[in-house]
């Protein structure tokens, strides 16, 4: 009963958390709508929110979503590639001082190049398909992810290593049973940043040398002064980006129950083990 009550309470507080940003958005949209009508702003300069909404209903399912589909596939492919590249790089950086001294500075230097300017060259190299855009997406996303992973993998207190060594642990055991779990919060931070960057990377890469994708659609509509549909596309893109971010966040919560032991999950555990006293319900102390 108390568990039920506290769960309701936490649900309420979550609604309270959502109410504030929701209120702000509504107020902003209302101001925007009023300003467009009162100042008689042309739709190709700034369309009213209601117009954007109408456009969403008209061209959303038929025009925008098919293009989003293309972009999302590039995003996910590039993101996946970035994750694999980062995993390899961070292990190399962690264990090889030669690599750390020889290659890491070059990777950092490469990040000062605005990679998007490479898009036409990549099209020449890899052809008129989605591969150049997947490459750009991966290049944009891997860097913060690698840095976050290396930082996390190095954040281990040396006493833990001594303790594992005293148990005669192998280097592989020290990596997988010690370094990796310690690094998880940092790695997930990197995964979230990389998720948003991957969406941006895929979209912008479609501005050059592409014939489909939501970035291509936005570029076309901008040229045609179809600003209303540009905003509709941006809205769809924003929702897709938030969904990807939220998905990574969900995986984060599920993979680190010792940090994110939600009351509902703790309640589940307690019911599996009837002897567990109330105090055993895991809640991290702040």
């Amino acid at each position, binding site marked *: 009963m108390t568990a039920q009550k506290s769960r309701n309470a936490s649900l309420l507080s979550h609604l309270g958390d959502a109410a504030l940003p929701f209120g702000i958005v509504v107020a902003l949209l209302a101001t925007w709508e009023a300003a467009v009508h009162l100042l008689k702003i042309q739709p190709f300069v700034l369309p009213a929110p209601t117009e954007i909404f109408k456009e969403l209903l008209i061209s959303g399912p038929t025009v925008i979503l098919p293009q989003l589909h293309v972009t999302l596939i590039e995003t996910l492919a590039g993101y996946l590639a970035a994750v694999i590249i980062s995993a390899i790089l961070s292990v190399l950086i962690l264990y090889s001082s030669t690599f750390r001294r020889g290659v890491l500075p070059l990777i950092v230097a490469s990040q000062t190049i605005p990679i998007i300017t490479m898009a036409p060259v990549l099209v020449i190299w890899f052809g008129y398909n989605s591969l150049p855009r997947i490459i750009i997406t991966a290049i944009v996303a891997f860097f913060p992810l690698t840095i976050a992973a290396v930082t996390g993998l190095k954040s281990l207190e040396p006493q833990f290593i001594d303790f594992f060594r005293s148990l005669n642990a192998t280097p592989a055991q020290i990596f997988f049973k010690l370094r990796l779990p310690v690094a998880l919060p940092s790695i997930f931070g990197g995964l979230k940043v990389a998720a948003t960057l991957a969406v941006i990377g895929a979209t912008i890469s479609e501005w050059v040398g592409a014939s489909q994708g939501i970035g291509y659609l936005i570029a076309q509509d901008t040229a045609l002064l179809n600003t209303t549909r540009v905003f509709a596309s941006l809205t769809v893109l924003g929702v897709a980006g938030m969904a990807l971010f939220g998905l990574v966040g969900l995986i984060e919560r599920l993979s680190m*129950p*010792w940090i994110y032991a939600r009351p509902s999950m703790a309640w589940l555990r307690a019911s599996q083990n009837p002897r567990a006293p109330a105090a*055993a319900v895991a809640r991290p102390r702040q």
Partner: protein
Amino acid sequence: MDGVRLQISNLHSGYATPDRGLVPTVDGVDLALNRNEFVSIIGPSGCGKSTLFNVIAGLLSPTSGEVALDGKAIVGRPGHVAYMMQRDLLLPWRTILDNVVLGPELAGKPMEAARNRAAALLRRFGLEGYENSYPSSLSGGMRQRAALLRTILCDRSVVLLDEPFGALDALTRATMHEWLLGIQREFQQTMILITHDPDEAIYLSDRVYVATPRPMRFAGIVPIELPYDRGRDVTMTPQFADHKRQVLALLRGDKGALDALH
């Protein structure tokens, strides 16, 4: 003696510095530990006690000297003794049950049996019902008991305890003393304990080694002549007070202290 488990002979250790060369931390330590004995090392902070444990555990190579376990040299070879370090070092991402079976897990032992054995011991260690909890929800005393259970489940013939109760309040600490003594007797453990607390050392031990300030040597060894089965009330006996006087005199650096009392 055929009962000798751990034999430390003329051990020296130190650490290298750029300006002062090799700074000695352990300066000629001898120690012999018999099967099922409990001895304590007491000494001032920073004298080199943890360094000595790191050498015994094989984490640190000594400058010179021998460490033999059951007659075999173990210098520089980790994995032969169970070592509970100064901090509990429970892994925050593992439940208590998963934490305490770490020793067998890293050694590649069959986990089903290890988990069953651990689960059966949780009650004796005051952790019953907490097997699926994370360390963050445990009190300080419970964390220490979990760390001790993990140490004992490593199944080594000698257990090193580096100030296991240093961070606990006096009341919890007193309870833990009685409990630890019970555990040591019941599980037939051979233990060395590091402490700053003379009462703790005397109450728990068969022998107390009193260490000098750095570099560490033993200023003297006080054999404790309290009954094998001792309750908390032995701390009130004249015998206990005598032992405490001996230990404190040695800690102060009073060389004739031991002879004067005998």
